[in-house]
C-alpha cells in the first residue's frame, strides 16, 4: 500500500509542479527580502530533503528498518531539513505567489507532520503501540512532504527554464 502511495505521491507532485509552473513564474513572485539567505536555505532544504527521501524511502520501500549509518544520515539531514524549512516558511510567508503558495504550504504542513512525529517519538510519552502509530504517521506525512517537495522544486525548475 505504502509503495503504491509513494508512486502516486511522486506523480501528483510532478503534475502539481507542471500545473502550477505558470503561476509560479519569477514575474509572479513577490521578491524576497534576503535573496542570498533565501537561496542558501532553499539549497539546504532541497539537499536535506533529497537525502531524507533517499534514506527514508529506500528503507520503507524495501521493507527494512531504518538502522545503521542510514539512520544517522536520515536523522542528521532531518535536523537540517526542519531548520531550513521552518526559516523558509518565515521568509517566504509573504513572498510566495498564489500558485506557489499552495504547494509550499503543503510542503510546510507535511514537514511539520514529519518533524513533529519524529520529535514526539523521542519523548517517553507513547508506549509501543503509540510508537508504531507515530512511525506510520511519520511515513504518511513524508508522502505529503514528498508531494509538496516535488511540486515546489519542479515548479521552480520549470519556471526557471521558461
Amino acid at each position, binding site marked *: 500500500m505504502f509503495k503504491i502511495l509513494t508512486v502516486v505521491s511522486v506523480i501528483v507532485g510532478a503534475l502539481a509542479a507542471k500545473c502550477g509552473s505558470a503561476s509560479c513564474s519569477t514575474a509572479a513572485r513577490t521578491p524576497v527580502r534576503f535573496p542570498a539567505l533565501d537561496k542558501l536555505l532553499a539549497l539546504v532544504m532541497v539537499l536535506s530533503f533529497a537525502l531524507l527521501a533517499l534514506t527514508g524511502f529506500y528503507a520503507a520501500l524495501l521493507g527494512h*528498518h531504518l*538502522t*545503521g*549509518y542510514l*539512520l*544517522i544520515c536520515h*536523522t*542528521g539531514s*532531518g*535536523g537540517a531539513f*526542519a*531548520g531550513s*524549512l*521552518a*526559516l523558509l*516558511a*518565515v521568509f517566504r*510567508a509573504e513572498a510566495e505567489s498564489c500558485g506557489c503558495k499552495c504547494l509550499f*504550504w503543503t510542503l*510546510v*504542513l507535511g*514537514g*511539520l507532520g514529519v*518533524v*513533529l512525529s*519524529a*520529535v514526539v*517519538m*523521542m*519523548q*517517553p*510519552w*507513547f*508506549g*509501543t*503501540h503509540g*510508537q*508504531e502509530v507515530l*512511525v506510520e504517521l511519520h511515513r504518511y506525512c513524508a508522502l505529503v512532504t514528498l508531494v509538496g517537495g516535488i511540486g515546489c522544486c519542479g515548479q521552480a525548475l520549470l519556471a526557471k527554464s521558461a
Partner: protein
Amino acid sequence: MRVSIVFLTIGAAGLLAAPRGFADEPWDGGRTVPVHRLPLNDSEGLDIVPSMPSAKPFSTSKSCGTCHSYEKISAGWHFNASSGKTPAGRAGEPWVLIDGLTGTQLPLSYRGWAGTWNPSALGLTAWDFTKMFGRHMPGGDTGEPADIFDDTHARWSVSGKLEINCLACHSGSHAQDHSEWTRQIARENFAWAATAASGLGEVGGMALRVKPTWTINDGPNPDDKEFAVPPYVKYAMPQFDSKNRTVFQIQKPADKNCLNCHSVSPSHAKKEDVDQDVHSRAGFQCVDCHRNDINHKIVRGYETEAVERKDASVGDFSCRGCHVEEPAKGGGRLGAPYPRHGGIPPVHFEKLSCTTCHSGPMPGATPTDVRVSRANRLGIHGRALWFTDAPFIQEPVFVKGSDGKIAPHRVMWPAFWARRANGKLTPIQPDELAKTAKGILDAGHQIGAVLKAFGQLGDESGETVFVASGKLFHANADGDVDLDTTFAPPTGSPSGFALLKDGKLLPLAPSFDPAAAQLESAVETRLLEVLQAIAPDDAAMGAPSLARGKKIYTRNEDGSLGVADSSDDHAAPVWGRTVNGKFKPIVSEFAVRAVVETAGTVQSFTEEQLALMLQTLAAADKSAEFAYVGRGYVFALGKDGKLAASSNPAAEPVFWPVAHNVRSAQASLGARACTECHSTEAAMLFGRIVAGGPLKTKTVAVKKMVELEKLDGSYHKLFGLTFTMRPLFKMTLWGCCGLMAAMLGVGALVGLQRFARYLGKKE
C-alpha cells in the same frame, strides 16, 4: 471350568502386576495435593518392612511408579539428555568437568550445544558421568543405564542404579537433604541416595569400598565392620505406621528444591545483599511458570520454545506470553503487568530479547563473576568446604541468540589439556594427567602437605605457616595454601616455614649456632621432633633434613641426629630431605615461585608450570603433540621449545542465556536514559570480556561486547555520540515545529481573512 479358572487367575495376576498409573488419569478437578501415605517398595517391587535390619532402600520407580508412570516421567528434560533422541532446545548450562590440579574446566553436554563436548566422545561412560555429576542430578538418565554390564570398570551391581529421585523436587519435608544426596553419590551408594536424602532412613556404609562382586542381596560384610562396610539403611521408625506406611510430604516443587541445582549468585557477594528475582518477590514460585504434566517436559520459557515444541500453550509462559497481551484483550496470564515501554522505538523489540534489559545484573565495564549451583558445586554443606571459584563464569555478556536477538548470556572460557592431531584438539581427562601433574602443577599442595605435616606436631607454640617474598601462607582445607591478606611479614623475614603466634613470626626450630661443636639437648630434641614430622613414608624419598649455615642435620633411621657438612651456606634454616648424600629443599624453588606468583589471584598455575608440564608430556609420549587450552588461546610449545599461544575455535567461550534474576521495570537497562546503551562507553556494547581461567598469563583473550553481538562498533560509537547532542537536537526540532506551526497558523488566519473579504465582496 479349569480353563476358565486359569484364565481368570492369569487375568487377575496381570491386573495386579501392571502399573496402575491411576494418577495419570485426567485430572478430576481437585486442587489439593492428596496425602501420600504409602508403603515403600524396594527395587524388586516388594513391600519394605522398615523394622527389619536387612531392609532395602526404597525404589522410586517401584514406590512412586505404582501410581505415576515412571516411563513417561523418564522422558522429561531432567532425565533424557543422554538418550540423544530429544530435541536439544535452546542452549542451557553445560555440565562442567572441573579439576583443580590440572586447571581443567571443560563444558560437557549430551545435547550438542555449541561449544560443549559430548561426554561419550571423551570416553566418559554413564558411570563416570553419574559419579562426576550425580551430586546435582535428580537421578535417572545416565544413572540408569540400560545395560549395566556394558562398562567394565563401572560398579552398577554394587552401587545399584541411580533412579529418578522424585523427592528431590517434590518433597516438602524439611528433612529433604541435598547434601546427604551428594554424600551418598560420592560413596557410590546410588540406590540408597534417595532414601538417605529423604530423611526416612539413615544410610551407612560405602559401596565405594566394597568388593565388586558384592550385591545388595548379599547383606552385611561379616569380615569387616570398620572399612569395607556395605551400604545399609536404618529406617526412622517413628515415621512409619503399623502398616509400614509413611507420609511423603509431597507438594508442587518448592523453590528451595529447584534452587539446590539452579542457584546463581555473584561471586563473593554477601547473602543478605543479593536480591531475589522480581517474580519471586511478587510471590511466584518457579513452577508457576515452569510447568509440566506427567511427561515432565517442563516449560523452559524462552520465546521460540512454543514453535520448537509445536505447542502454542507453551508460549503463554514466555515473557511475552504473560506480559505483552494488551489489557484491552484481557491482559497476560497471572495478572502480569502490561509494559508501556514509553519512548522506546519498536525496533528494540525486534533486535533484543526481553531479558536484555530486564535480566541478570546490570552490565558493567566488565561482566560480573558469578557462581552457579551445578558448575561451581554450590549448596553442598558439611565438613568439605570445597573451592567454588572454578569454573570462572561471568554474566551478563550480550550475544545473539539462536533466534537472532541479542540476549544476555553467561560465559565460560574452556580450559583443558589436549592432544593435537591435524589441528584438531581432543581433550585429555584429568585422571590421565594426574600422575604427570604431580610435582609440577601441585605447587600449592606441595607446601600445603608440608604445613599439614608440621601441623601434626600439635605445636602449641603457634600455627605453622609458610613465608615467601614477603607473603604469608596458611594451609587450607583442600590441602592447598591460602595467602593471608591481613598479615604482612616484617621486611626481611626469611623465606620458609615458620610459626605464627600472637601476630609474630617465630622460627620452627630454636635458633642455634651451626658452628658450635655440639647442639644443646633441647634444641636437638626439637630438631628431631620437627624432622620426624616431615619424614616421608617411603625411605627412598630421602631422610628428613635441615640445612643451616654450612651444616646439614639429618634424622637417621635409628632416630639419632646426624650432622654433615654442606658446600652451601644457608643463612636461614631450610627444611628438606637428603637423598644419596645430597640435600634437597622439601619445597622446590620452582614450587615457591609458582605459589608466590599466583598468590592472591584466582589462578592456580603459571606459564612456567605450563611449559614444564608440556615438556614432560611430550617427553613421555613423543608420538603426540600436546597443548593447553585456556584464557581464550591454545598454548603449545613451539619448535624453539618456547611457549606459543594461538587462536583456535576450541578455545572460544561457551555461552548460555541468562533468564533470571528478572529486575523490575524501574531497574531495567535503559529505564533511566537512552545513554545506558547509546553512548560511547555503554557497557552493553563496549563492555570488555576478559577470558577467565586457571592459568596465570598475560596472553589473555579480550573481547568487546559488540564483537560478540556481531554489531558494527564504529557505527555504535558514532550513534552513541549523537546522543550527547540529542537534547539540543530535540529542542531545535521543537523550535522548528513551533515556527512552522506559527507560520501555518498565520497563513490560515490570513486565508480566513481573505475568504471573509471574498464573501463580503460577493454580498
